[in-house]
């Protein structure tokens, strides 16, 4: 149905106000910098180093490599989970390195690079709740963060679950610790991180083995950004073939880190998902 004149005037006014520079390689090289949107709260993809107060992480290192290949300076902009795609669509960031899951629904809105991380979403429960399998959570209160793929995935796997969402995953974890819900759902890497953060109390918690979903995380570019996607994929392919990509993965996810993965189970070579 077509919108009325007033509403279209408002929409046009809003889009003018929010117009940023449309991301393409020439414009970025002209500016001399690439604005990369990131979360800064999702260890080890992007998080704030407590000593230097800089944002560091797996996706930050990838972003730095992309900026190096383009010959520009990377500028990182911290944004909220729910704001990632709108910021990219409105041109306020040129690239997203913000733990964005590549799925079919989002393909209509943004372009995705080669998937840089294959992970899943899992549920963390208190051992005292006696829950050992995912289907025991049917009809229970489940806590998670707003604006991501967690809630739709929970409802797909457990349609009768009562999902309560919070602005940050830290608040959702606090609510789990206080007993305000039966389970806390988040990306596997974030859960491993939280385990380490809880410290000694981690003995009272368990991560259920079943995956609620498998997710391919990728960098996101504005829709129909032909040459920027080519440039980003070229950098990723270079890192993969030289073995640097695997080294970066092991640096942030490998043995000795909080995630403590023994090896990498995927390659950075495809931007296709089911």
């Amino acid at each position: 149905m077509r919108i009325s004149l007033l509403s279209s005037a408002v929409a046009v006014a809003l889009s003018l106000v929010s117009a940023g520079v449309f991301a393409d390689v020439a414009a970025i090289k002209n500016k001399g910098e690439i604005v990369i949107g990131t979360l800064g709260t999702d260890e080890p993809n992007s998080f704030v180093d407590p000593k230097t107060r800089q944002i560091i992480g797996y996706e930050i290192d990838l972003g730095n490599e992309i900026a190096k290949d383009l010959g520009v300076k990377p500028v990182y902009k911290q944004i909220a989970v729910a704001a990632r795609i709108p910021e990219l669509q409105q041109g306020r960031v040129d690239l997203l390195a913000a733990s964005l899951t590549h799925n079919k629904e989002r393909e209509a809105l943004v372009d995705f690079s080669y998937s840089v991380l294959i992970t899943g979403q899992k549920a963390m429960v208190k051992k005292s709740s006696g829950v050992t399998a995912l289907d025991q959570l049917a009809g229970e209160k489940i806590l998670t963060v707003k604006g991501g793929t967690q809630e739709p995935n929970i409802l797909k796997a457990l349609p009768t679950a009562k999902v309560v969402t919070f602005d940050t995953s830290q608040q959702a974890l606090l609510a789990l610790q206080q007993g305000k819900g039966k389970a806390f759902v988040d990306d596997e890497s974030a859960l491993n991180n939280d385990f380490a953060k809880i410290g000694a109390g981690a003995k009272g918690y368990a991560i259920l083995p079943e995956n609620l979903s498998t997710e391919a995380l990728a960098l996101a570019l504005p829709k129909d950004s032909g040459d920027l996607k080519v440039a980003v994929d070229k950098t990723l392919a270079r890192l993969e073939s030289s073995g640097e990509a695997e080294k970066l993965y092991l640096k942030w996810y490998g043995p000795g880190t909080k995630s403590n993965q023994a090896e990498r189970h995927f390659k950075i070579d495809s931007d296709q998902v089911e």
Partner: protein
Amino acid sequence: MAGRSPRVLREMLDFDYSLLLSGQYHDMLLSGLMLSIKLACVTLVCALPLALFIALLRLSPVRPLQWLGFAYVESIRNIPLLAHMLFWYFAAPEFLPESFREWLYAGNIEAISAIVALTLYTAAFMSEDIRSGIRAIPIVQLEAGRALGFGYLASMRLVVLPQALRVTVAPLISQTLNLWKNTSIATVVGVAELMYQAGQVETATFRSLESFAFATSAYLSVSLLITGAAAWYQHRYVQAKSR
């Protein structure tokens, strides 16, 4: 808008009414609206008596009671509602005895904390309005009541308050409007009210314009109803008095 793809522009201007009028997303938004209305009504019912009580505390002849009322109003008013919400949801319930706490957490702790925070916050503002209304009534009315043999509370109840509340309705209506808008803050503690549902619909469908247009018009409609009630009250009671 230079350089923005024509597809994106077309999508921005494509307003999908069907989303708002029927189907799953319409139901979500409607349930959010119902919960917002419930929150506002329950809070209003709880906050008005509390506000009256605090106002009477501040006006009482007993000094310690005055200090109590003053402390309540100043401490609650000067802290943002968002901080109140987070306090009553994350911090305060932890001090309850364990069994009561377990029972509470299994139930609707989110809505309950939101109502407690909203009630205390709204009552602080309303009590000031009620106090001003009472002070607008000449002191001779209270003295006349005392002279007739009524105690402080009885003369308040029978003589001063009926006159004062007539004066106070206008500022109380504006506090009710504030309360109605403040229910949207409950979204930060996970209450599934209107703004929360609008955000959920937006995340699920990526149609921000439609979902927030629904939320805006819902807030506007109820606000206009509340203002209409105030106008009707003015017309019906206050005009008659000034004749």
